[in-house]
């Protein structure tokens, strides 16, 4: 589904040049449930932007569903975003002058679906999120958890293959976080590739694969085997394998990136 090969990205300002991503290699299969963790400045948001075709990269390759995402025109990028990817954001990013249903329906506007039809579809998605009764409320009348569920419904309405969530629970309390994570987990179970950027261990723990970023490189990765009967977390090695621990709990294995 997603293949990154030696991905580099730098930001240039007048004063400084910042090398943010320094050769990222990553394969994410269809249906995977992945979280990306790292301190601020580790490049995780940049990586998410590139995955979401919201930003470009300098070097390397990004294959999305077999298509090379590089040097895309504005229209093509918008097209792939619309077809493939649903976004969920920390600050919900609902349009505040549109009610819940209109917010959910908006992506279909850009797919030229008629108003009547897209509102109907939006209601179905809201229903699935348990928000049918809130369809005609404005965002400022909704709680944080409700807003995020509206945002997820909006991400889902164009039937994306991938959900990209940028700190989806960053603005929520622990109880609501759990609710939202349950929703995302359920979505993942329907076969949608789900990628969550987070700095919360508890959020990452809900996913099956945790990619740790540090200084623009993948520091290490942990993987939880979800095969029936196997409940252990299986470390995954990247460069030079150096397994050291295979305990019952989630295990982190340092990957030797340094020469």
């Amino acid at each position, binding site marked *: 589904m997603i293949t990154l090969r030696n991905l580099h990205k730098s930001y240039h300002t007048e004063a400084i040049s910042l090398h943010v991503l320094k050769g990222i290699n990553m394969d994410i299969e269809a249906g995977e449930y992945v979280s990306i963790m790292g301190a601020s400045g580790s490049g995780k*948001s940049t990586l*998410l*932007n590139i995955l*979401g075709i*919201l*930003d470009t990269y300098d070097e390397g390759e990004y294959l999305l569903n077999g298509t090379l995402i590089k040097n895309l025109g*504005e*229209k093509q990028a*918008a*097209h792939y*975003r*619309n*077809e493939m990817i649903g*976004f969920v*954001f920390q*600050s919900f*990013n*609902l*349009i505040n*002058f*549109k009610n819940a249903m*209109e917010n959910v329906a*908006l*992506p279909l*506007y*850009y*797919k*030229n679906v*008629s*108003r009547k039809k897209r509102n109907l579809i939006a209601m179905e998605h809201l229903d699935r999120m348990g928000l049918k009764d809130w369809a005609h409320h404005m965002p400022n009348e909704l709680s944080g958890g409700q807003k995020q569920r509206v945002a997820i419904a*909006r*991400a889902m309405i*164009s039937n994306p293959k991938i959900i990209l969530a*940028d700190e989806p629970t960053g603005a929520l309390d622990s109880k609501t976080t759990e609710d939202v994570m349950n929703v995302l987990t359920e979505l993942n179970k329907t076969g949608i590739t789900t990628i969550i950027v987070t700095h919360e261990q508890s959020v990452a723990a809900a996913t099956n694969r945790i990619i740790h970023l540090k200084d623009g490189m993948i520091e290490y990765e942990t993987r939880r085997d979800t095969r029936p009967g196997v409940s252990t977390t299986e470390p995954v090695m990247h460069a030079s394998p150096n397994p050291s621990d295979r305990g019952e709990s989630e295990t982190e294995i340092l990957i030797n990136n340094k020469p």
Partner: protein
Amino acid sequence: MGRGYANNMLDHLQEIFITLSKNKLRTTLTGLSVSWGIFILIILLGAGNGLKNGVTSNFSERAVNRVNLWSGSTSMPYQGLKSGRNLPFSEKELNVIDNEVQQSELITPRTQTNQTVSFGSEYGAYDIYGVMPAYRDIYKLEIGIGRFINELDVKEENKVIVIDKKVEDVLFKGKSALGQYVKVGQVMFKVVGVNTKKERWGSTAGYIPFSTAQLIFNPNKKFNQIAFTVNGLDTKEKNEKFAESLRRLMGRSLNFDPQDKQALWIDNAQADYLETIKIFGAITLFVTIIGILTLIAGVVGVSNIMLVSVKERTREIGIRKAIGAPSSSIIKSIILESIIITAIFGYIGMILGIGLTELINYIMEQSANAQASADGPQMSIFKNPTVNLGYVYFSTFVLIVAGVVAGYLPARKAVKVKPIEAMRQE
């Protein structure tokens, strides 16, 4: 997909109208600056036009190329003659002007005598002018009933009279005077015509053939007014030169010093008109400048609000991009929004402005009519304060273009901002 383009367009428009109506303050502010700009522009242009029309209409009451000569009395001794001599005109001067003043066209003398005019038991004291047929064109009389004095009347010294409408009203009490005989002084005159012009300036009068007047009321054959039209005096310099040579010519004929301003009074409407035209030029320029400034103020207002509103919408633009909106679609929406706002509110401003100028025009016409039926002279300095619609459309168009440009530039910039960054703007 697979739906008609018109249907699609309707959906886009609906989406834009929803956006506009949900952001009432922004929409209203933008719209008001457009409406106000157009409104003020129309009022200003209307006021300028009203002033112009008003003053022009005063001139159109008489021939603008008319020169009036009044006899005076000398204030300087000349060639052994003492000062203080009265110098009335005689037919000699009439011929001098007719033959030697190249610029002269129509010409008429005017004798003046105040007589009691009566019909039956009704009577009144009116000025009786002895004039030539050209008088009608020089003073732009409107003979609504009958005819004016003609050449034959002058030749045969006919006792015919043309009277002003007000005289007819007094003497005939609403009945037609045409063909009736009135007594002027001690002589009976046949009424051959009625001057129906709404006289704003002078008194009520009767007009009789010059020759008849000379015969009956003017035994010494002297008179003190000559009016004639001139041609080709289109600059101030030419008019000044003309007045000078006219003075010399008349000085020779009447024996006075050409420097003696009191011996002959020259009233040159042409020169006055040229002066007024100059003032018009200034008024027009003034109104145009104010109009342009108003338009610029409107453009700045619209641009400013568009700039701010797009900036304010950076986050919304980011969200729309993230959920799959192509930049072109976003820019298109913003431009359409500004076109719709400026067009609708421009139209409102136009309606209000034109409505107000038409209302003022209506009120003024009403009061002018009321005044016309009342006695006393009147003069309008303000008339028909309406505006050429072309200017209005042009101004609205300029504001629309300004709105489009002012919407497009920041929108283009805004859609270039990365969605994630745009959305992080709170």
